[in-house]
């Protein structure tokens, strides 16, 4: 027998189907059963079920880490995790969202985080309690080698922490599962800021240009451009020379 959902969806719906076979699956959200269209992400399945989400959703595109979700699939004892906007539902999936995880962040000014062997230990001494269970790595939706960057932090290897952790979305899933109660993403943030501030060289061309601008070097030229009418500007624009592109992977147009 068809449920009301199925009849309605095939009759009038936002899913204008060309092959009308709509399949449905069960999901259990916080223990409660919903019948939803097959093939949706967890995020869209919850909305299909009628939720107007406030928590647990942000960018909807895998960038912000707001939609961390814990789930179990049919017949599997293991707890799984993923981003609701990136993970597809399965029949009889049991899930709960984890949109916030209590975590402690160290406070510092950027000048006091010079790289040193004990930088991370000063602010996050608990990293020494890592059991090397590798859970953090297994849960990371960005496939980061989280355990390795924690090991690098223990050694005070700032550039390694920065490099290995760069793609971190700060979703909190690693911290939620870590038996040593480490807050990996804050450790990583400290590492990246320390690295960029002190281990990367400042750009000299940047200082030079700022000096030039402050000294008024370009003022006259800009002022005379501002005075031009549209036709004159159009000519200057179309006659400007363009720096040649020698890379194999040119970036074109807007992102």
């Amino acid at each position: 027998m068809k449920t009301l959902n199925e009849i309605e969806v095939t009759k009038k719906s936002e899913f204008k189907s060309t092959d009308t076979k709509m399949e449905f699956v069960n999901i259990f959200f916080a223990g409660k059963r919903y019948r939803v269209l097959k093939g949706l992400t967890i995020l869209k399945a919850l909305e299909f079920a009628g939720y107007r989400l406030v928590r647990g959703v942000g960018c909807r595109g895998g960038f912000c880490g707001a939609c961390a979700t814990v789930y179990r699939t049919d017949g599997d004892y293991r707890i799984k995790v993923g981003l609701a906007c990136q993970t597809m539902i399965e029949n009889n999936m049991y899930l709960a969202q984890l949109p916030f995880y209590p975590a402690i962040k160290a406070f510092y000014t950027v000048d006091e985080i010079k790289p040193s062997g004990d930088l991370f230990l000063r602010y996050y001494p608990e990293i020494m309690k890592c059991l090397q269970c590798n859970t953090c790595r297994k849960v990371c939706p960005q496939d980061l080698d989280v355990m390795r960057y924690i090991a690098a932090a223990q050694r005070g290897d700032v550039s390694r922490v920065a490099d290995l952790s760069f793609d971190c979305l700060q979703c909190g899933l690693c911290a939620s599962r870590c038996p040593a109660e480490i807050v990996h993403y804050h450790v990583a943030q400290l590492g990246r800021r320390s690295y960029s501030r002190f281990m990367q060289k400042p750009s000299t061309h940047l200082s030079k240009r700022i000096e030039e601008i402050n000294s008024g070097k370009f003022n006259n030229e800009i002022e005379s451009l501002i005075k031009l009418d549209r036709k004159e500007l159009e000519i200057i624009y179309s006659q400007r020379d363009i720096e040649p592109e020698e890379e194999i992977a040119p970036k074109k147009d807007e992102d």
Partner: protein
Amino acid sequence: MSYPELMIESIARVEETRSSRLKQIMPRITLEEKQILLENFHPDYKSESFRKLKIGPNRGDKVPHELADLLEARSRIEPKDFDLSRVDYETEVLVIGGGGAGTAAALTAQEQGIDVIIATKLRWGDSNTIMAQGGIQAADKENDSPVRHYIDLVGGGGFVNIPELARALVFDAPMIIRWLESLGVMFDKEPDGTMKTVHGGGTSRKRMHSCRDYTGMEIMRVLRDEARNRGIHVLDFSPAVEILLDESGKCAGAILYDLETEEYFIVKAKATIIATGGMGRLHVQGFPTTNHYGATADGLVLAYRVGAKLIFMDTVQYHPTGVAYPEQILGQLVTEKVRGMGAQLVNNEGFQFINELETRDIVSAAIIRECTDRNLGVVTPTGMVGVWLDTPMIDIKHGSGTTQRTLPAMVRQYMRYQIDITKQPILVYPTQHYQNGGILIDENAQCSIPGLFIAGEASGGVHGRNRLMGNSLLDILVFGRRAGKNAALYASTTKVNSLTLKHLEKFHQELIESGVGLERVSPMLLPDYSSHLSKIRRKGGVIIA
């Protein structure tokens, strides 16, 4: 999941023509052809999708219906009955919106030694800023100059950019990059500290600075971390729903609505900064969008009601290559890099129809023509139409492994749906990307209302009618910092009189008199993506449109 039957048949046709297409470059079209293409197929030229506003500072100007519906709408509160005597927070500067512009503004205001509160709609940082991948522009290389940047900027914007704003953008740019550098933003650099820079659409010099493929995320992470360190007060899940004025007509704070407890809170502030971002979630003309969940034009609505003028709201930026299949990631951005590396755009029959390196508006219009007029689009099982972006060509042209190496996030994303983009093409369609215009500001990031400052995508004028990639991340920081500084200076010399919502009463009156009526309510705050059926159930079974 991979591709369904019908789409696989179409892919076979794409494969059949691939070897001959590899040798073939589609000629660029002439200026006249471009104009005809745009007029017939670019969404901005579809006059029935716009209407003239009946009330407010932009009366008579045309804007998309979706935006007009929000601008011509009543407040969710009843101004006469609202008790303004119970002030919940008092601060010198209130920043509305916790994205890149808002956080930069708050940091800068606080540097002036004054109190700041950030009120934001979702979590702090859940924003368009965090989604920006490509990069940020600044003319800081030897062969470049702010003058060149200026020329590129106004050329891209259709020569209508407001000159003073454009000048501020290009002059502040190197200083902004230096600020980010000093805060510990991890730019892509050579070992000697030289910034690695590349071209972007419409740049005449390579001035696109990047932080790998996550430029916006890296900037947002660092600004937020810094603001946390400095103890800036943040109220999250608390969108502003109305701007407050005082008896003398100055801006005096805002009314916040707690999305969780459904309570209203009054923030009294000497200066207020609107940094609420864009409007992708209005789905103008039904387009999908790349924007985050909270991009619903709230700031435009709030500012319009207190009498601020909008500019360039009749142009919307569409990104030509948004995901059209699978449905799960509909509308998300497929970076231009893919076309830059040689993937061609191909229709249902396997034929090219436009040089993929034409400008964004032209490519968008050409894709729309293919999918509508020419009926040569590919239809998906959910009824979406699109054209193929022939991604396997990248590895064929540049050697196997290139796609994996240069576009790892994209390969990973499609693999989740069992689509191997190195072996199969992907389906794309234009997607709503950026709000070119916004609330009109001056060089100090101030709008026409004393005490009200605007920064970021919510503001308008600097980009003219079309923003170039990398100038937006720049704009939010340039004008975020200017707004923060000027709001702080202004706050230190001003006094707020008693609060009022008289402007709202007047606005409601205008709604009635113009015949618009009081039915629609705004700001939208969040889109409602619950299914049609649950909407019916919520209304007790009444079928709604």
